[in-house]
Every structure is written in structure tokens, then in C-alpha cells.
């Protein structure tokens, strides 16, 4: 069960590292577009995978404010908390 923001952030990092094209030295502060070289479509598709793991849906407008992996984790945590 992933509960805290840091748990979610850790889970996201693990998922990202399953992709061999992602740099090995990423952290929660890594910027998704600039540091991971994800384009907008890649970001949306990656978020879909995370959504399934956490059983939440992230509306697209929320993605606009997300820069780093920790931002994404905080967003997912907030949406998950609203569901309870």
C-alpha cells in the first residue's frame, strides 16, 4: 500500500527506472520534461500507468502544474486522499 507522498514518489521512481532509456541518476526532484526528456504524450501515457497502480484518475488539467516527480507524487496523494 502506497500512502505517503514519499512512498508514491519512490514507487514512481521504480516504475521510471524500469524503462532503460530513463537516466539512472533520477530523484524526486528530477524534472519530468527537462531531465527525463519526456514529451507531453509520454508524460500522459506514463501517468496512465501510475493511475492504474494507485487506482486513481488524474485529470489532464492537473498535469499542467506538475514539473517534478515529487510534484506528481503530491498530486496523486491529494487525489487519493479526496477519494477516501
Amino acid at each position: 500500500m502506497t500512502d505517503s507522498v514519499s512512498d508514491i514518489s519512490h514507487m514512481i521512481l521504480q516504475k521510471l527506472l524500469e524503462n532503460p532509456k530513463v537516466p539512472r541518476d533520477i530523484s524526486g526532484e528530477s524534472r519530468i520534461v527537462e531531465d527525463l526528456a519526456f514529451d507531453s504524450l509520454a508524460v500522459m501515457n506514463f501517468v496512465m500507468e501510475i493511475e492504474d497502480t494507485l487506482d486513481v484518475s488524474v485529470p489532464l488539467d492537473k498535469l499542467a502544474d506538475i514539473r517534478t516527480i515529487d510534484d506528481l507524487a503530491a498530486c496523486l496523494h491529494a487525489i487519493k486522499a479526496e477519494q477516501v
Partner: protein
Amino acid sequence: MSAGLFDKYATLRGNYESLMATSPRNPFGVVIERPLSATVGIIEGRETLLFGTNNYLGLSQSEAARDAAIRTAENMGVGTTGSRIANGTFGLHQKLEKALADVFQRKHAMIFSTGYQANLGTISALVNKDDILFLDADSHASIYDGARLSGAQVIRFRHNDPADLEKRVARTDKATGARLIIAEGIYSMTGNIAPLNEFVEVKKRHNIPLMVDEAHSFGVLGAHGRGVAELQDCEKDIDFIVGTFSKSLGTVGGYCVTDHDEIDLMRLCSRPYMFTASLPPEIIAATLAALEEIKDRPELRQKLQDNAARLHGGFKSVGLNTSNFISPVIAVTLEDVPQAIAFWNALLDAGVYVNLSLPPATPDNRPLLRCSVMAAHSAEEIDRAVDAFGKIAKKLNLT
């Protein structure tokens, strides 16, 4: 110091310049000097086979549509110069709306100046910031842009995946805002056909309206050419059908048809309907003539299906990677951009024009050579295209 307006284009400029460094011609700037027929045009001074249009039935060159446009322009002039809300509706607008409602066996139709605006105008009239939209992940840009204009929360579901849609819909069953599901009939980049009948089951279980964009399937699929919903016998369960005149009908404009009587209220809050000039009379006349031609010549649809099967089978026989759907859009998927650029240029050199589609505008981050088939193509023209594809693929060591 504040940033310059075009500073944000630095990455785009870099990508564009590296593309242009590897391509002898600009893939986004092809000039068709003039069409000689529906299937042949002059490009770079040479006769070139056209496999990169959306002219599925060849009706952009319809004599009946052309003559109707000429007669109407002579009688009524060439433009309306304003919005229907502010500057008045022409009788022809109403005539076309009635004709479309009749074709789709719906109570109402609303026409727009382009297909793009049809999606923007319909979506933004149906949902607002308190509502939730469920969009197929591979939706056309006009659907995404309509969603942004509406301000609704957008939740993507996996392409053509009813189970994934249902999972995401179920997460919002307690939401207080209105909900709307949007899918397309045929997807414009890949030619994939949506399982609309399965989406209908999801909408019924969760009591959510369903809107379908049949832009690429109207005139193409179904016993009467009404699209994928007709083909899959689920028309009555689709609340709003949106489409365009610029594909099988060969002109320009878009529409929404529905049985909901609130359509006249939608006209009053749809900005892409209200704040633009309405369709000019000669275009409406040509569209009406093309609609009649679709009704009167069902053999065009059969010819289109035969041609699609011939091109699809031809691509498979020379070992190219295409979707398993046989539809008038057939895309060859390649592995990387340099390969796609070389292939596309070689095709044009060989006298075959197709569309080069590059990531991120393509699914799966892989480039596509998008081909579209017409009822007007001859078997010989299709075989020539397949032959060119096969030879170039071999030369590039792809097969």
C-alpha cells in the same frame, strides 16, 4: 529582461532544423500545384499519385457538387460575411441541417464552418468546468482542444479499450458534475476502428451520454454510409454524432446531429458556432449535392472497401507493418524518424504522395506513413503504390 515571443520556440526550431538537414524537401510544405483528378495531382511539376488525402469517395472532384457550387455562387454570391447568431441564417444553412438530420435519422442537426469547430463547438457547449470528460487517449486534436475550451476535467482512457474506460468511469460514479464519453469511429492516423458497441454497454451501465466523431467513417462504413455506429448497429444509443464535410463529402465544414431538443440552446453558448462566419452558400450547395451522391451511389462505398482491402493486402504481402483493421486509412508504422523521412522522400521521388506523421503526433511514439485510399483509385494505381512501397522498403533494408 522579459523573454522574446519566440524564445519558447528554441526546442522546436532545433528539431525542425535537424529534420530539414536530413530531408531534401519540407514534409510539412508539400505543394499540390493542381489536381488533375481525384487520384492524380501535379507535385514538383510531375504527375503524382495521391494517397495522402481524405477524399475517400473522390467527391472533391464531383461534377454534380462543382456544378451546384457554380450555380449557387452565380445566384447568391460567395460568402455570408458573418455569424448566424448575429448576421442571420441563410435558407441553405437550414436546408443542409434538415438534410443531415434526415440522413442520420435524427431530430436535429447543427452545422459548423469546419470539422475542427464542430468538435470545439459541440464539446464546449455540452460540458463545463464542473463536468468530467472521458477521452480515448488517441483522440484527434480537435477533441482535446474542445475539452480545453470547455474547462471540463479530462480523463483519458486507453485507446479502443472498453474495460479501461469502464474502470475510469467507475472511479467517478459519485461525482456530482455531468459526465460525457467521447470516441471516434475511425482514428485518423492509424485507421483503427472503435468498438462503439462495447462503449455503448459501458455508457448504459453507468448512465453517461456518448458522443462519437465519425469524421473519417461517414460515407465510408455502414450499409448507408452513416459510419461505425451504423456498421455496429448501435446508432440509437449514441447521443451526439459529430462529423465533417471535408473528408468523404469533399468540401469543408462540420456538423453535430442529435435527438436532444436542447440543440437550439447549444447554438447560444457554443463560441466556435457563434463567433465565426457561417458556411458560404456555394459550399453548402456542393455539400448538399455530395450528400445526394453518397445516397445515390452506394457502389462508391463498395469500391472503397475493395480498394482498402487491395492496398492493405498489398502492404502485408511486401512485409510492411500496418494495423490489422482494413479501413480507408492505412498507416505503415516505422521504427525511427530518419527511416521515415528517407522512406517518405523516396516515395515522393517515385511519384507517390502519402502523409508523413511524426511523434508526438502519432501513437506509440513511432513515425507513420499514413496512406488514404479512395473509391476513385484504380487497381493499377494501388498496385503501383504497393510496388513503390515494396521496392523502397527493400532498398532501405526494412523488409
